[in-house]
């Protein structure tokens, strides 16, 4: 479903060129629950950003459901992200003035879904992530774990091909982190949604059925585990 072919990414910091990724290749199949792990500066977030079409590779190509992304313009990439990708961020990135319901339904509004369907699906996904009865609460009125559940619901409501989660448990305590991971595992099994995480949290790595390790911008191991 996702193919990353010999991708490099260079950043220029002052006079210095930093090689964040050095010829990374991998493919991700539908329904995978995969973690990209590595120490800080290993290039995991960079790789996640490139797969999420948030950034452009210096060289190489990424295919998302058969579509090469390097040739796409800004608008086409926005459309691709809107239709096919979901994001869960480390610091949740919810819109503070919108309720849990509005934060989640926002993703469907972007797709132009009609009002009654938005209502039905938003209530459904919020119930699924365990937030029934909290629809009207603002992010500030929710705990960190609950906010991340809203973020997961927001990512999943549009039934994307792929959910990218950048350090999704980094701002949560371990119990809450575990709850979120359990939730994601459930949703992965139930909907067959592909999840790709970046993390340096051992607990997240333990949950992953596939663990790709990065070091200095290169894949050092790609380990598949049984579910």
């Amino acid at each position, binding site marked *: 479903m996702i193919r990353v072919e010999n991708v490099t990414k260079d950043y220029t910091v002052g006079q210095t060129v930093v090689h964040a990724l050095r010829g990374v290749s991998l493919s991700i199949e539908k329904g995978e629950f995969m973690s990209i792990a590595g120490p800080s500066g290993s290039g995991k977030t960079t790789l996640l950003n490139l797969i999420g079409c948030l950034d452009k590779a210096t060289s190489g190509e990424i295919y998302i459901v058969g579509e090469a992304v390097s040739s796409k313009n800004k608008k086409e990439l926005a459309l691709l*992200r*809107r239709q096919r990708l979901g994001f869960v961020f480390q610091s949740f990135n919810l*819109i503070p003035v919108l309720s849990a319901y509005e934060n989640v339904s926002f993703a469907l*509004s972007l797709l132009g879904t009609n009002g009654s369907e938005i209502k039905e699906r938003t209530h459904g996904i919020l119930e699924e992530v365990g937030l029934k009865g909290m629809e009207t609460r603002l992010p500030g009125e929710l705990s960190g774990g609950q906010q991340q559940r809203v973020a997961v619901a927001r990512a999943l409501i549009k039934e994307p091909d792929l959910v990218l989660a950048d350090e999704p448990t980094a701002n949560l305590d371990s119990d809450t982190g575990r709850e979120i991971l359990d939730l994601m595992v459930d949703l992965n099994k139930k909907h067959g949604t592909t999840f790709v995480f970046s993390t340096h949290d051992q607990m997240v790595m333990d949950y992953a059925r596939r663990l790709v390790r990065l070091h200095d911008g290169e894949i050092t191991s790609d380990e598949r585990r049984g579910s």
Partner: protein
Amino acid sequence: MKFLITLAWKNLSRYRRRTMITAAALAVGLLFFIFLDGWLQGAERESERNIIWYESGSAKVMTDEYLEDLKSMPLKYAIQDPAAVEQALEGAGVTTTRRTVFAGEIFYGEGSLFVKVVAVDPQTDEKIYRLSETVAEGRYLESGDQGVLLGEWLAQDLGIEVGEEITIRTRTRYGAFQTLDLIVVGVLNTPNPVVNKGTAFIPLDLADEALEMEGAVTELTLYFPEWRDPEAKIQSLRERLSVLPGITVESWKDLSRDFLMIAQAKSAGSSVLLILVFIIAAVGISNTMLMAVYERVREIGMMRAMGMKDGAIRVAFLFEAGGIGLIGAVIGVGLGVIANWLMVRWGIDMSTLMGHMDIGYRVAGVFRSAWHPQAIAGGFVFGVIAAMLFSIIPSSRALKMQITDCLRYE
């Protein structure tokens, strides 16, 4: 679209105090605009009316030579046969009255003062002018009077009271010196400072005899209802008068160019002031929007990551700024309308402040505003649109950032 409006509205209420302070800046700007514009409009309209009622009527018929040398008011260039002019204008839809205007020097006590002397026909002058309604002391002129009416400020400057005698020295139509010993029969307090300040009125028959006019007059004042836009009427009157060589007609606008120029200059000056007021409001709104955008760079990054188009994000900020503009405009227009209503209803008495000062407008005493709906509506629309425009630069700056930089932004 509904989502963008909801988001904008909720973001406005997120920082209620900031929203209200910014909206207040715009509201104050609009309040000043409406107040000042209404005041200028009022002064201008009242001036126009006071020119028509007390100074020049709708138009004046004169000889070409008299018009060319209008400041000197030369009697030798009077209209020889005013009846012929009246005949030519019959059926033209105008009211006429005869006047003779000349320069004179008033002697009273040990002092003297150069004034404009206007000889009026007490029977017909009232059909056009409203001098008789403004007699503050004494009485209005009558034919056969050996009397004079003085503007109130002029009487005060000379220290003359009703019943006292003055002497006016002038020259006859043939250039000979003539002195007129006249009793002050009344004092006029018109709302036109030009009349109050330097004009004396005498009966036309007295002037005819004393100045050897032999039935000639320097002008025929005309009144017609279309005076606000007199050009077409003047054109048709000129055609009628073309049978009388050397006779011309000038509209009140042409005769009061000094006032129109001053009014225009003041309007331009006021526009500069208004622009300054709006710049202050613009700085406030830009600053607020700049803060709003930079506080929400990560939110912007998230929305872009989720596939929201840059244009839609820009529209969200446009709505938000438009919301500030709308609140400011509603408050500003509301307060402006109240202030204007007070000024239309009661006005401000400037007589103490201004004394006998002539500021160009033909208004004395109470300055009243007028309603100017176009300016009020224009101010409202401008306030909202300007507020929206001021959000473009800050939001565009944030949208120029890479999505990944937005998401990392602290």
